[in-house]
């Protein structure tokens, strides 16, 4: 079922970007994340897999404090980005989200032009000094999002008029435009067809050169194809975390083995 080459993927040791220790998340009375500790490396694609409702998206949303926008959500524990506690009072969540970009499950371009979609982040963070500067940032982001060639002649058309796959790459370009250090992707391909999916996956592999990527995915093939590290979540616990090749070929925990062989899920 899986390409055997993944077990031989070259794994170079990169510096640690995110370091999470003993993270607990409560939604009201529900204990959604139980004591999760994980290290996420720079210039690496880390995949979170697991059955629905296992807490992988919730944990992802802790990394850029998107859970703060939900009233009943409580996060405990210690999450550090480059050694800095991101839940510290001195950290501005708004600044943090500029540094830790996010791409959502459903493509969500704003009802504005393609240009304004990408320029949104740079504008609110004041990254461009003038119009020419902004033009350059937008072009660079669209090129990084691998969508420049398709939209360069219609930057003033609404972003909502693009196809699903183009919209998702536009959203990735939009996230890239704020010059983040980490990109979080919450099931970025689940609303896309296979061709668009493979385009986005290629893009992830490309983006890995400059960013740390964390993706949540329901597709184990996708995790195997694009990630170097894989974390398996089950019922709010982090069951196993390691090299993708090892998780898929030689899992240590029997729950992981049951999941990847399709017996639970």
């Amino acid at each position: 079922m899986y390409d055997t080459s993944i077990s031989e993927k070259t794994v170079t040791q990169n510096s640690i970007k995110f370091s999470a220790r003993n993270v607990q998340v409560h939604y009201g009375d529900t204990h959604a994340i139980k004591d999760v500790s994980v290290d996420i490396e720079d210039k690496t694609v880390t995949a979170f897999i697991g059955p629905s409702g296992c807490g992988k998206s919730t944990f992802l949303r802790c990394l850029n404090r998107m859970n703060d926008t939900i009233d009943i959500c409580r996060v405990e524990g210690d999450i550090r980005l480059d050694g800095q506690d991101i839940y510290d009072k001195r950290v501005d969540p708004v600044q943090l989200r500029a540094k830790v970009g996010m791409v959502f499950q459903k493509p969500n371009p704003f009802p504005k032009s393609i240009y304004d979609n990408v320029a949104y982040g740079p504008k609110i963070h004041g990254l461009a000094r003038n119009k020419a500067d902004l033009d350059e940032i937008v072009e660079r982001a669209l090129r990084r999002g691998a969508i420049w060639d398709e939209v360069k002649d219609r930057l003033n058309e609404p972003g909502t008029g693009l196809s699903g796959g183009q919209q998702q790459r536009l959203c990735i370009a939009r996230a890239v435009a704020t010059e983040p250090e980490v990109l979080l992707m919450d099931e970025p391909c689940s609303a896309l067809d296979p061709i668009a999916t493979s385009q986005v996956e290629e893009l992830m592999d490309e983006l890995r050169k400059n960013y740390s990527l964390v993706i949540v995915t329901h597709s184990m093939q996708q995790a195997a194809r694009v990630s170097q590290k894989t974390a398996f979540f089950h019922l709010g616990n982090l069951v196993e975390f390691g090299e993708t090749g090892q998780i898929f070929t030689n899992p240590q925990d029997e729950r992981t083995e049951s999941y990847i062989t399709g017996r639970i899920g």
Partner: protein
Amino acid sequence: MTSIAFLALFAISIIGYVWNITAVNAIRKGGNRLHSLGYFHGMYAFLVSFIPVFVVILLWLLLQGPVIEWIVAGGLPAGEYDGLGTGEQQLVMAEIKSIARGTIFGEPEEWKIAAAERLTRLYTLSSRAMLIAVVALGLGLMFLSRSKVSAEFRARHGVEHIVSGLMIFCATTAVFVTIGIVASLLFETLKFFDKVSVSEFLFGTNWEPQIPLREDQVAAEGAFGWLPVILGTLVITAVALFIAVPVGLMSAIYLNEFAPCRLRAVVKPALEILAGVPTVVYGFFAVLTVAPAIRAFGAQIGIDVAPNTALAAGGVMGIMLIPFISSFTDDALSAVPRTLSDGALGLGATRAEMVTTVLFPAAIPGIVGGVLLAVSRAIGETMIVVMAAGLIAKMTLNPLDSVTTVTVQIVTLLIGDTSFDNPKTLAAFALGMMLFIVTLIINIFAIRIVRKYREAYD
């Protein structure tokens, strides 16, 4: 007699219901598979006999009066009735009817008493004939539906057709009633324009709806230019919107995006209570609290303020419209997909930036629609302005002055003893017609805006 007819109809329909169910259950016991359950056969019988006969009864009751009067009038002695004018004919017929009821004034002529007897006889005959017709038609329909009962008969679909027909009827009722209202308004308005020219009404800047009481009265010629009146309405509407739109928008945005759950749970119902306050109570508030307060404040800073200002009436009307606008805005904001606001927050926008740059632009069609509906409510609002606005029509834009509105004028023109053949009374209908047209245009505009931009995002 009419009530007996209704009782008979009920009895027949229910008997048909039970009869069909019994019949179909017998078929079922005989080992046949039924297309429709017994209940549907019963309902079919009930509806098939009830609805047509019910309609017949209503039509009969509606038409019997005019028909009988026509017959009686035809039988009156030549020269006594047919030579009279319409009004006098009505008078004679009313006298005959009151004789028939037993109330006799003075010594009526012989032929009138004879006509009254004839009238009574015809009414008795008519109601007996109706009872017979009802029973015959009801029984006929009952047997017809009984004859259809069989294992294959699709009573289920039959019932569905009948019920959907009923629903279509109900749905079109509102449309026909609207057409009826417009027609009645139009009729009186045309009469008004017989007496006052259209151009004088539409472009005249003087509104003094008076008519001479005596032929020789001096300086009592009325003036019917609606411009100062509609101008007053517009001033008050503008004041109301000036208060309602910002407050309504801000409160909706706050409640939708910023307020903690517990505060929202208290404030939102409180706003809805504001929407439930009767307008007459707002009127009290305007007259007894707001107007004196504005006057006192004006006196303090040395401005002369009229006792019933446009500001007081419009301001209180604005308060009335706050919940209206805020609930529309709230709906429009909630309709914007959560993913959009998440996207903006995920890019590092603050909540305020997210609201102004993404959420609000996305919700604006719904908000504009709500504001326009609020405008047409403000224009048509009556009670507050009757209590708090003035009566004298002035061409002024000053909100501290006393102005009058279209609705106030309609009320004052129609109050008291009025006859419906002079321009003073008919002017009320012309004003009503104009009001109807203005609000209709605004409503159409609002609906179009809301529809046009609604599917911008899925």
